[in-house]
Each structure stands twice: as structure tokens, then as C-alpha cells.
């Protein structure tokens, strides 16, 4: 397409919006509502995922060795473990460290009492272990099986139930968000298509003349594509601006007025939210505008 034609198409596209202002505003309004709602869902899900990840990162899998395993054998097991794909990091917990931790947890660090009962004995002498963090907790089952299969591994302890519940929650959130996004996209697509259809019917005579004079399809379609893209762009920028202020205000308000929430949740910063939200929203707005127009012009402008 020539530059002069592009200029013409942009001018005509903007004129279409002006001519068809009421319907264009309705489309922009709906797009704003849809993408604002999407923004809210996105922020909630992002914050929840952030929390889930926090919890996930604290979940550990412990690998215990066969009794009497030598240091070389333990080191060999460590090498084998690190070869597995789902391992985020691994720490060696010696029997002494394990016993000290136990004393801290169970006897609140009362060494005097512990000494009086156990003397110099370490009841956890055969309980040195590797403490492992996983990259993806939802794949814990598979990783545990792989760990159990390593020669010299006696036992693998994992918090299976918590991991599964968290994975299920993330999955559920993902399904909900995909569902909501799909519905919102369809609503927006329908509205943009409606607006373009009206624009086409208003310019029916002009389009017919253009076609008979010898205009190429793209020349006839381009102004409507510009119209759709522009509606989509405006419809995505406005909710982003609103979201920016609403998010800051809401997280600030929640942190200031609800101590329980403030203690439990570490809110994702608005910058972090917008790193993903802004490009996705703009892409969705522009994409829906473009494809809405493309489908509509394809349907109505065949001569």
C-alpha cells in the first residue's frame, strides 16, 4: 500500500468514527468496560499467583539416605539429584544440623534439658538429608518418583497435599481467567463488528462506486480496519490509565486499613502489574478491533 493511500485510509477511518460517533463511543465504552474488568482479574490473579509462588518456594522435599551411607555416596546422590530437570535448588542438612533444628522446634532450644535426656547422643544420626526446592510443584509426584529411584536413597518426604492443593488453585484461577477473557473478547468483537457494519451501511453507495471504479479490496477495507484498530486502541488505553490509579489506590487502602490482609499479602507493585497488563490489554484491544473489522469487511465488502 502506498504512503498516500495509508494517509487516505487513516483520514477516512477517523472520519468514519466521527460520522458514526454514537456507535463508535458505544464500542469504545464496551471495550473499556471489558478491558477494565480484565485488568481487575489480571491484577487479582497476578497477586494470587505471587502469593502462591511465595508459598511454593517455601515447600521443600527431603531426601534421606541409606543407613551408613558414606560422604562420597551422599555426594554422588547429590550429583544425581541436580541432574533432574525440576530441581530449583538443594541444601545438604547434616545429622547435627537436623538435630539442632529439632531441638529448636520441639524443645524451644532448651539445651540443658536435652542434654540431661540424650547426653551426647544424636537420635537423628541417620537422618542427614538433602532439602530440595522444586521449580514446578505441580510436577512433584514425578520428581519424587525420580528421587526415589536414585540408588542410595532410603526415603523421600514431601508435602504432597499442599502442593496439589496449590496447583489446583492455580489451575482453577487460570481457567477462570481464560473463560472471562474469552467471553469479554467475544462481546467486544461482536460490538466492533456491529459498529463497522453500521459504518459500511452508511457508506454503502460510496463503497459501491469505489468498487465499480476499480478500487482494490484493501483500499476499500483499509479505512474500516483503521476504524477498528483505533476503537480498540482507545478502548484499551483508557482502562489502563484508570487501572493505574485504581490499583494504586486500592492496594494502598487495603494495606492501610486491613492489617490482616497487610500481614498476609505482599501486593505486587503497579509497575510489575503493568509490565504484563499494558501490552496484553493493548494487544487485545487492537487485535479485537482489527479482527472484528477484518471479519466484518470480509463478509460485507465482497463484490
Amino acid at each position: 500500500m502506498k504512503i498516500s493511500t495509508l494517509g487516505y485510509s487513516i483520514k477516512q477511518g477517523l472520519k468514519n468514527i466521527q460520522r458514526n460517533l454514537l456507535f463508535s463511543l458505544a464500542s469504545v465504552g464496551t471495550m473499556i468496560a471489558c478491558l477494565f474488568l480484565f485488568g481487575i482479574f489480571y491484577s487479582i490473579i497476578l497477586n494470587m499467583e505471587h502469593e502462591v509462588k511465595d508459598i511454593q518456594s517455601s515447600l521443600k522435599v527431603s531426601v534421606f539416605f541409606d543407613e551408613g551411607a558414606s560422604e562420597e555416596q551422599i555426594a554422588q546422590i547429590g550429583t544425581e539429584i541436580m541432574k533432574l530437570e525440576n530441581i530449583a535448588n538443594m541444601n545438604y542438612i547434616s545429622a547435627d544440623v537436623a538435630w539442632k533444628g529439632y531441638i529448636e522446634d520441639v524443645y524451644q532450644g532448651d539445651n540443658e534439658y536435652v542434654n540431661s535426656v540424650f547426653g551426647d547422643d544424636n537420635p537423628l544420626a541417620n537422618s542427614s538429608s538433602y532439602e530440595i526446592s522444586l521449580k514446578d510443584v505441580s510436577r512433584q509426584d514425578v520428581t519424587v518418583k525420580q528421587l526415589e529411584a536414585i540408588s542410595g536413597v532410603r526415603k523421600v518426604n514431601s508435602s504432597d497435599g499442599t502442593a496439589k492443593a496449590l496447583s489446583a488453585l492455580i489451575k482453577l484461577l487460570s481457567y477462570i481467567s481464560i473463560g472471562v477473557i474469552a467471553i469479554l473478547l467475544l462481546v467486544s468483537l461482536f460490538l466492533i463488528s456491529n459498529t463497522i457494519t453500521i459504518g459500511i451501511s452508511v457508506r454503502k453507495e460510496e463503497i459501491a462506486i469505489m468498487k465499480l471504479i476499480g478500487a482494490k479490496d484493501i483500499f476499500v477495507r483499509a479505512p474500516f480496519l483503521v476504524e477498528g484498530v483505533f476503537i480498540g486502541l482507545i478502548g484499551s488505553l483508557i482502562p489502563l490509565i484508570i487501572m493505574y490509579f485504581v490499583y494504586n489506590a486500592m492496594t494502598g487502602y487495603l494495606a492501610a486499613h486491613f492489617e490482616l490482609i497487610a500481614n498476609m499479602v505482599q501486593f505486587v507493585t503497579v509497575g510489575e502489574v503493568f509490565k504484563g497488563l499494558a501490552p496484553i490489554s493493548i494487544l487485545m484491544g487492537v487485535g479485537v478491533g482489527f479482527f472484528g473489522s477484518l471479519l466484518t469487511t470480509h463478509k460485507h465488502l465482497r463484490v
Partner: protein
Amino acid sequence: MVQLEHVTMQYPTGKKALDNVSLHINKGDFVFIVGSSGSGKTTLIKLLLKEINPTDGEIVVDGQQYSKLKRKEIPMLRRKIGVVFQNFRLLKDRTVFENVAFAQQVIERPMSEIRRQVPGTLTMVGLAKQYKQYPKELSGGEQQRVALARAIVNQPEIILADEPTGNLDPTNSLEIMRLLEDINKKGTTVVVVTHNKEIVNLMQKRVVTLKKGKIVSDEEKGGYKDED
């Protein structure tokens, strides 16, 4: 330039708008296609513009076989044909200049060429001074001249005029015909579909008469044949 070989156009209702029509028009010809309503004149125009496809037969314009044309090739074909409509079909929200320039814009001519070409074309049809006016401010004859200017501004090889004098008084009708004659003298093939008896008889050009979808006469320097 224009060939119709055994062209039949049958609508889904079963009605044959054109029935086995064969017609040859040479480059530079001026031809009237005459006939009463329902004779197939409008169908013929639509077929030549490839708005519709014949149910049988072949159409060839400037060496291009319509049956072999791809969809994306249709705009290029139409650029060879300038069309004038009975009801002018001007864009009401655009000035005379913009209406004529529109024809060049849609085929993506550069602005410099549009600025050069449009005033010359408007001068040719006698509307140089009215370039700023809107269609509603013009008489019927002037509006048809704008439509004619729009049809010729891209210098097509053929002009198809569908009842160009249908909404005009005799004086304006004659003026439009004279303009078409001038254009024809410069080498453009002109095909005029009309039922204006006086004009046809006055112009003394080739006359092809259609009746119920068939060519019933084709005469050089002919006249309008009254239907029985």
C-alpha cells in the same frame, strides 16, 4: 475491444435476462444499446462491469476473458471502464472537485497527478468554475457532467453510460451526448444504454436493439426501433 460470445444470463428465478447474445464492439466505436425495460440492457452493463457472471457464454474485453479472471484482477479490469449512471451517483458530502478526484484516489494515483488531472477534466466538461460546489447546488445536467468527468478522469478505454440522459431535459441530454461524442473522437470506445429515441435518432451512430434478452437488430448509423 468488447466481445460477447453466445452470452446467456439466467437468474435463479428462471428468467433469462440475456439469451444467447453475441456482440462485437471495436476499439473507438460509439454504440447505442436500446430497448424497452426488461430487454436486458442493465444486465448487459452489469455483465460488462463483472458485477455478475453469465450463466453461459464468454465475455472478452480488451483481450481479457472474464471467465478466466481472478477476483483480484477485477479492479484492474474495471479501471479500463469508465461508468456513467442514470442517477449520477455522486457523493453528496463532497465537492465537484472531490467527486472527480475520488475516482483517482481510489485507484491510488498520487496527489500531484490528481491536482493536475482533475482541473483539466472539469474544464473539458465545462465545470471548471463550479469545482467548489456540492452536487445539490448543481442542475441535473451539471451533475451528469460531474459524473462524466469522474468516468473519464482515469482515461479509461471504454465508457459505459447507463441511461445517461434518463433524468435530463432535451437540451442537457444533447450536451451530454456531444461530450460523449467528443470523448469518442479522442479514441475512447463509448457504449450508451438508453431508451431516448430522439437522441439515438439524432446521433446517427451504431444502434443495437435488444428485445426480451435477444439482439433483434444491429445497424450502423441506425435509428431507434419502436417495439411492436
